[in-house]
């Protein structure tokens, strides 16, 4: 010590000796400022991230919540056997049922009402009637009360999406129709209720936008996520374990390693091209099937899971491995008993992020037939669920967002809310597990 200062010549650099602990010296003050700054950056980063989240969630909620309510017309209807037979005769049967509805409502509203107005106010409910009566022929001739959704315009008017002025030159709704709708609402014929149909319903065309629901595609996404989870987690973890713990360090494993990181950068649509070529054209799996979607997304998710798993395996201190090997555990046992549990938080993080990505991905689905107008019924059996044509939530949202009628825009945001809820539910288990396995050593 003494000779250090001696060789340095003038007064020793650094801390003045014998300083008080209670007064912070200049250098420490500067370092503490740096510390404060550093910490502030951290807080700022978190706050920034959270505020972005807040803004996004707020805009999602404000645009999407209206999708969860709907306006319905309550209507007592009597369909006679003759009317039924006549309608079933037609080629365009549902249109015939629609006419029945319109006429009935028009007569209920009084002479002065233009049936065309009623037509514009009511959504297309012909199919609702038809399926009801074909299933319950015994109710023919009786009076049945139906609650049928109003048309998307009227719905939009009641939700404030559409203004009266805006309809001035629209062929879909006239100011008179709006007056009539207001009147019907005052009379209690039109009421607002929670839109279960949105949650349980299936895709509908632009002809019947109010009926469109996210339900079937939730099921599609669910089946895809099952495939992704069941395949990508074990395969990803197994591949990481091999690469990190067992692989001899040679050219071949380097190639695998680079390959995996590279796969992460492959645009998702290219996975769609691959899926189309391999799973559909080569392996002969059906188009638009959640199974194929799940397989494609599995390939897409694998790199994410592998990269995060490897990073966390690598972070486990070697002394733990030594300890296990030292008592005569095999490499396999040391990995599965000690290293893997310690790496679990990172694995779960990778899984959460990978699944989130897979759940929200549309592009690869475009090529394997899950984007468009699909998913018309719920699967009857489990295998049907995997193999039957279905869509997925992001695909549904994507197609809705591109549709002309603004109610679809609302539904798209509503779909995003459902997707996020789905995502959170899916992640909660992983997050809870992760919290249990987090520890420092």
């Amino acid at each position, binding site marked *: 010590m003494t000779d250090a200062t001696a060789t340095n010549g003038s007064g020793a650099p650094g801390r003045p000796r014998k300083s008080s602990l209670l007064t912070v010296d200049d250098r420490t003050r500067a370092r503490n400022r740096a510390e404060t700054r550093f910490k502030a950056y951290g807080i700022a980063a978190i706050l920034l991230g959270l505020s972005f989240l807040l803004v996004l969630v707020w805009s999602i909620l404000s645009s999407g919540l209206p999708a969860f309510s709907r306006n319905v017309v309550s209507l007592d209807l009597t369909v006679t056997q003759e009317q039924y037979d006549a309608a079933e005769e037609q080629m365009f049967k549902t249109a015939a049922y629609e006419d029945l509805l319109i006429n009935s409502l028009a007569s209920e509203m009084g002479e002065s009402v233009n049936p065309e107005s009623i037509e514009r106010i009511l959504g297309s409910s012909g199919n609702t009637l038809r399926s009801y009566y074909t299933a319950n022929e015994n109710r023919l001739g009786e009076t049945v009360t139906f609650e049928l959704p109003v048309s998307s315009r009227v719905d939009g008017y009641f939700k404030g999406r559409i203004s009266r002025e805006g309809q001035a030159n629209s062929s879909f709704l006239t100011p008179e129709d709006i007056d009539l709708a207001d009147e019907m609402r005052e009379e209690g014929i039109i009421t607002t209720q929670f839109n279960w149909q949105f949650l349980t319903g299936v895709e509908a065309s632009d002809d019947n936008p109010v009926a469109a629901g996210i339900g079937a595609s939730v099921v599609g996404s669910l089946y895809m996520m099952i495939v992704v989870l069941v395949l990508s987690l074990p395969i990803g973890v197994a591949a990481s374990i091999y690469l990190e713990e067992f692989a001899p360090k040679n050219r071949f494993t380097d190639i695998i390693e680079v390959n995996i990181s590279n796969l992460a950068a492959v645009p998702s649509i290219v996975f769609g091209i691959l899926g189309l070529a391999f799973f559909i054209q080569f392996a002969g799996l059906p188009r638009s099937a959640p199974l194929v979607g799940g397989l494609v997304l599995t390939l897409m998710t694998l790199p994410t899971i592998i990269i995060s798993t490897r990073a966390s395996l690598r972070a486990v201190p070697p002394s733990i491995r030594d300890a296990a090997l030292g008592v005569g555990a095999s490499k396999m046992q040391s990995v599965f008993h000690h290293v893997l549990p310690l790496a679990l938080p990172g694995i779960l993080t990778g899984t959460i992020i990978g699944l989130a990505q897979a759940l929200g991905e549309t592009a690869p689905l475009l090529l394997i037939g899950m984007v468009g107008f699909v998913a018309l*019924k719920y699967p009857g059996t489990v295998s049907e669920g995997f193999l039957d*044509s279905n869509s997925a939530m992001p695909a549904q949202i994507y197609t809705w967002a591109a549709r002309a009628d603004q109610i679809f825009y609302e539904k798209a945001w509503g779909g995003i809310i459902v997707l996020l809820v789905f995502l959170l539910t899916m992640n909660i288990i992983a997050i809870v597990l992760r919290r249990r396995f987090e520890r420092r050593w």
Partner: protein
Amino acid sequence: AVAQSRDNVQIAGSSTVLPYASIVAEAFGENTDFPTPVVESGGSSTGLARFCEGVGEGTIDIANASRPIRDSEIETCAANGVDEIIEVRIGYDGIVFASQIDGPEFGAFEPSDWFMAIAAQVPVDGEITENPYTSWSEVNGDLPDAEILTFIPGTRHGTREVFEENVLLQGCEDTGAMEAFIESGMDEDGAEEACMTVRTDGVSVDIDGDYTETLARISSNPNGVGVFGLAFYENNTDSLKVATMGGVEPSTETIASGEYPVSRPLFFYVKKAHIGVIPGLKEYAQFFMNDQVAGAGGPLANYGLVPDPELADTQALIENETTMSEM
């Protein structure tokens, strides 16, 4: 057990046709005992590419297209064994020019206005220069003094082609720029190309997404003018107002009569070999082109399709399964 064979009709192709096809598919499922067809989107190109992959269960039955099939595509199809194709024209799609409802009053456009506003090169005082205009009023005194900002379909859209030919090229000829180009030493093709080349200085923005994106852009740019399909515009009259083109108001009637200059036919193509193999395929085509569906007053027209005046011919064509080569 026996492998399940496919029992629903599979359709893919143009996203412009998608809404119409899905309306029909839905109604077809509701009104018949056949399962509802699956209609995929993804563009005319992908649809036709898949259509031409070959015949058999693993390929699609119908391709939707917002343009006629090309000869090169027909050749590829034939090479893959798809030699019998039934072409069905379902009607017309009008292309309209609309702007924000609270924005400047554009009122009436002429093709020449558009050419002068967004072509890369225009003749100014007889000389060909880089397009100097920044305001519509500089192009045409009748137009408001609003910054030029247009949102036109990206080069990969079928609409773009129609826009280029019926608006830009037309405008090019109307303004005499075409001649000026030729005079300046270009050959005819070169001049046409020059007519249809759009400036790249940010005044005209290519939209690669769909009309929703154009709408979103217009709502954040009061001066913006966008190109839309008629159906899309009609669904959004409360945020958009439309301008006339060549003095004609776009509507189902003016388009059907051919008065309105910018419209294009929409198609779907049926793989004849699949008729009789895939249940419901022919029935779907028939249902689609039925008067009650594709005719005036039907759901397609309600949504914005301009019905084909020659609907009856098309119906006969489907009935007889007449392929393109037989016509």
